[in-house]
């Protein structure tokens, strides 16, 4: 099972993923792939440290799959977390 580690960033709440270099990136494709239980445990330990350091919130392991089209989360919830709402909301053209 392929996995990545995700969380919400404390400052703005957006979804982030633990990258191979140990920082937190907004794209699921930038996440470090966790291919063993040991790797998942090590990632969770880093996440706990990041929680303590007030960088992130609510870390969780996300099951993913790799295909020629890219990396996708297996569950609908985590897919929506990765890609954003499945609806085309209308925003202002001059939003921040």
């Amino acid at each position, binding site marked *: 099972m392929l996995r990545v580690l995700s969380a*919400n960033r*404390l*400052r*703005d*709440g*957006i*979804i982030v993923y633990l990258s191979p270099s140990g920082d937190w990136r907004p794209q699921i494709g930038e996440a470090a792939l966790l291919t063993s239980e040991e790797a998942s445990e090590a990632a969770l330990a880093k996440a706990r440290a990041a*929680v303590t*350091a*007030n960088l992130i*919130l*609510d870390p969780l392991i996300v099951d993913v799959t790799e295909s020629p089209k890219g990396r996708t989360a297996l*569950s*609908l*919830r985590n897919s*929506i*977390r990765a890609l*954003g*709402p*499945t*609806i085309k*909301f*209308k*925003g*202002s*053209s*001059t*939003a*921040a």
Partner: protein
Amino acid sequence: MYRYDEFDAAFVADRVRQFEDQVARRLAGELTEDQFRPLRLMNGVYLQLHAYMLRIAIPYGTLSPRQLRQLAYIARRYDKGYGHFTTRQNLQFNWPALADCPAILNDLAAVEMHAIQTSGNCIRNVTADHFAGAAADELEDPRPYAEILRQWSSLHPEFSYLPRKFKIAVNGATEDRAAIQVHDIGYQLVKNGIGEIGFKVYVGGGLGRTPMIGHKLRDFLPKADLLAYTNAILRVYNLEGRRDNKFKARIKILVHEKGVDEMRAAVEEEFRRERKAPLSLPQAEIDRIRAYFALPPLPERPERSPALDARAAKDAEFARFNRYNVTPHKVPGYGIVTISLKPIGGIPGDATAEQMEIVARLAETYAHDEIRVSHEQNLILPHVALDDVPALYDELAAAGLATANAKLVTDIIACPGLDYCALATARSIPIAQRISERLGSPERTDEIGPLSINISGCINACGHHHVGHIGILGLEKGGVESYQLTLGGSADENCSLGQLAGPGFTTDEIVDSVEILVDTYLELRSDKAEDFLATYRRVGMAPFKKALYERFQGTAI
């Protein structure tokens, strides 16, 4: 409308400064998330799937143009340029940064708004009929009483840590447009045998995982006793409500387990003990608050408008708008105009910053500076001269805000669902969009007539599915979305809870299923005047169930 006095302004400003300090301490690491979470929730800040969410109270659904413009400014400055009007007369921003929330609250305070008690186990935003003060069928405007309850309950020290959240609604018209029987307390303004106006009191209604219709505790409560009686109900609940199980902590469970007669006796006993305390409402104070809600000066006009009639005679689209979205006003020659936030295929309740600004301008031009927000997720201009409706319609149409579908099958109530909400188990909005597209042609919606479809993306029922004529509950089964259908719900004065039709349907099946229900209704109705709910109440579940499961036999999950 109500204006903050010095006390209100200082109260809200203090709260903003307090939260500013709390956010700074959180970002600096001086507060842990466990310490901070209850503090941010008390200020309306949730953490959702993609970002924080800020829920802003719109007390009893009344907004000024200045306030709506400020919401538009906040949407642009701090969010993605839109807001979502909710099923409890709140506005939610889906993308604010935590670091910006104090600045947003400061901007809200500048226009006499806040997010206090939009979350947490406290008395939430007090809601009311969105046609209040304007409706032709109204006994008295419920908003002064909602405002009195709001002031009394804001940061009430005794009721800030209730067993669970607590929702109060007040209605003043014959038609219950505030869904009072599915609130923790519902107050209905009534006249007694000697002509005095007071309240009929319902307690213990609610939706969520255990839907219940409220029980009547009192046929008549004098206005002076409004706070003392509310206090008594809250005291009994605060003391006896279950704190051992979150899912059994609402007052509806207490009323159910205790029995309505014992609940009434306990409330009356507490009420007798406390009614002489300073909670008795002086008439002068009621009058002072009522003055804020006085009807604007509406010049006398003829009952019918030749300009409106002439336009309706030659313009079928305008005629539909006038038929569905203009409701009789208590003053002849005026109408209440519903601005639908349910364009065909659109997202129920969403409004862009530009749309908010347009509505604010139109309220100033045509509607005496008043805007209302309905729990049905639409906006309302409550005082529009019938002569002005054609010009107003033209401006709304140019802004994409003239969908003529109030109370029709495409006027769908939907919670944010799994597209935004951390609690959701399935998506709501895409289902609403697909149903709207399927059934949304003018000819078809006209043929179907009044029909409410309410969609919730989880068992917590923010989309009020139990009280939709057709209710849809999105669940997750075996890793995929599954949608259950309920039939026969209604949130009005003849309140009823929808009954489950049977096993759920897949995402692919659910729109077809709704269409089958609609087509079955069209076959079964005695005549065109019998709407969906009336037909369901006459024929029952069986023919609808038969039609549904004949089609989907073997495929329903």
